[in-house]
Structures are given as C-alpha cells and as structure tokens.
C-alpha cells in the first residue's frame, strides 16, 4: 500500500486510539506514542502498530498515535483505516 497523503483515523474517546500516518523522509516505520497506559503497555502497543503498518505494506512513514486504553483489535482497525485513507487503494477482505 503506497501512502500518497496523510491518513487519520480514530478518536480520543476512552477505549479508542487516534492514529495519524504521514509519508516520511526517514527510513522505516517510526512510531511516536502517547498513551494513558504507556508504562504498562507502551511497548506492546507500538509493536501492534508497527506490525499492522507492515501488513499494510507501508514503508518509510511516521505514525503519531494517541491511545486511550484501546484493545489490540482496535489498534489494528485504526492503523489500517488511517493507511487506507492515506492511499488510493482498496482493502482486500
């Protein structure tokens, strides 16, 4: 999936996560995370974000995440939606 613009998805409500993905000059998938549960789960949340971005085929992107205690399935959904909104591609179910 090729990112052609910034893609944003999610909200700042409890249980959700807001994700913004931007094309980057830097190499790889660079995640910047703010989370209400960063001390406990920060590493795991970053891992889910990175894995999902890789599964979407993203390369060289900055991902800004603001987490409000989301589950893994919510993180995956919001990262994928943000990536799709930033690309011109359709998701293959």
């Amino acid at each position: 999936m090729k990112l052609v613009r910034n893609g944003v998805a999610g909200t700042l409500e409890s249980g959700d996560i807001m994700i913004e993905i931007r094309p980057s000059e830097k190499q790889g998938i660079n995640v910047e995370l703010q989370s209400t549960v960063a001390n406990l789960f920060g590493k795991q949340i970053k891992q889910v974000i990175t894995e999902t971005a890789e599964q979407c085929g993203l390369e060289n992107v900055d991902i800004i995440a603001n987490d409000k205690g989301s589950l893994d399935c919510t993180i995956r959904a919001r990262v994928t939606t943000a990536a799709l909104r930033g690309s011109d591609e359709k998701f293959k179910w």
Partner: protein
Amino acid sequence: MENGRLRRTMLFVPGNNPGMIADAHIYGSDAVMFDLEDSVTLAEKDAARMLVYNALKTIDYGDIEIVVRVNPLSTEFGRDDIFAMVHAGCPVIRMPKTETAQDVIDTEKCIEEAEREAGVEIGKTKILTAIESALGIVNAYAIATASPRIIGIALGAEDYCANLKTTRSAEGTELFYARSAIVVAARAAGVDALDTVYSNVNDTEGLIAQTKLIKQLGFDGKSIINPRQIAPIHGVFAPSETDIEKALKIIGAAKEAAERGSGVASLNGKMVDKPVIMRAERVITLAKAMNLIKEEV
C-alpha cells in the same frame, strides 16, 4: 426462537465505538447488534466497518448471538459491509429498510458471493430483515419466505411512522397493524418476530407495558438501545411459577403417553395436544434461560 435461540433482547451497539464493542456482551442480552448503518456518520463508515471486522475476528463473544446491521445494498457502503462481515465470520446480517422479497434475494446473492470468496460454508450466514415502511409491511410474508437464511423479521418503527405520515405515541396505536402483520407473517414463515426499540431509556414502566403488549401479540423479543432495558424485558418474558409447574406436568404427561404408544395425552381430564406441548416447551426453554429450573429437566 428460530434455531432454538432466545431473542428476547437485541442490544444495538454503534459500530464506531470501540469501548462499547468490547463490552457489549457482558450485560446479558440474548443478542448484540453492531450497527454500521444509522448510528455511523457517512465520513466514518469505512472506520466502523474496519473496527467491527477486527473485533469479530478477535473478541470471543461466547454464546451470545452476534448480528451486524449493514448499510442497504442500494448505497455505496452495502456491498463492502457484507463482504467484510462475511470474511470476519459474522453469523447474522441484519438488512435495514427491507421492502420487497427482491431486496432479500439481492442481499442473499451478495452474501453467497462473499461466502465463496471467503471460503465460508454456503448458507452459513443468516439474515435478519428489518421492515421499516408501509410497502415492507404489505410484503412481510414474501420477505420472510424469500430465503432459507432468514431467521426473523423485525419492525423498525421510526422510519415506518415517518413513512405512514404519523408520529409515535406512548400507546403505540399507530403500530398495531404493523406489529400484527409482522407476527402473523413471521409465524406463517416459521421465523422469529422482533419488535422495535423503546426509545425512552428512563421510562421503565413504559418499557414494561410495551413489552407486555408485544409479548401478548406473539413477538419473541425487542431491539434495545441500553443495557438497562434488559432486565425489565427478560422479567416480562419470564414464566411464572404456576406456568412452569403446569408446563412440567404437560411435558410429563406427553412423555408418558409417548411411552405408552399413544399420540394423545391428557392432564386433569383435559386433552394435551401438539400446540399445548409446544407452548409448554417454550415455557421450559424460557425458564431454563432464566435459571428458574435446572438444565436437566
């Protein structure tokens, strides 16, 4: 109670609210319905679809029945909704604004296409239709029999009343014909009849009165918009001690007659025939669901 399932309460959950999607099954409703239609804004349709898709693939909802209300096929979202939900293993698709048998046939065709693509057994995904217009009510039986996938037909009263050029009243006078038409069509087709939501979550007395009415009409249950509505509705559907005692005696008499090789049983001098036994079995099922009697009875 099609498929042997109770459907006294079906809790509506907005499809773009992760907190509610994660918690919806803990309150004890018989079914949870994730909504991709009216509770989701046009700009968030893609996000809600992706969220419910991921939730269904990940969260174990246990024995609770999971239903997803998709957007109509006539919109740009309907087909994608169906494909996503079938791929996620959604057991029941709720069709909104169903007006004709052709609407059901078109939806079934789309579901079947998605099942083939996803490698899901053909026919596994069931359909619940919502009737929300005068035309839908006139066609209720044709809709209820349009596909073997149909497990029930539901009334959507807000759109129906708008279409009828009337408003909703506390007594529900304007819904008498639609409710009766839906119950008769559902029973004739052998599927469930599900009533519309009671919108005022603070009016428990009103909710109980309306539930008594729809139970008496023959409905299997109601859609609900708040977990607080579960207990009052289940309370109305709960059989009394006398009902349970009588039902157990009827089942016992029918068993005894069957063991004697007789097709007809009697209890206290009254004939116990098939409809009486079916009603008794429903009382026992409800009583078991509410832990009013032990499972092995």
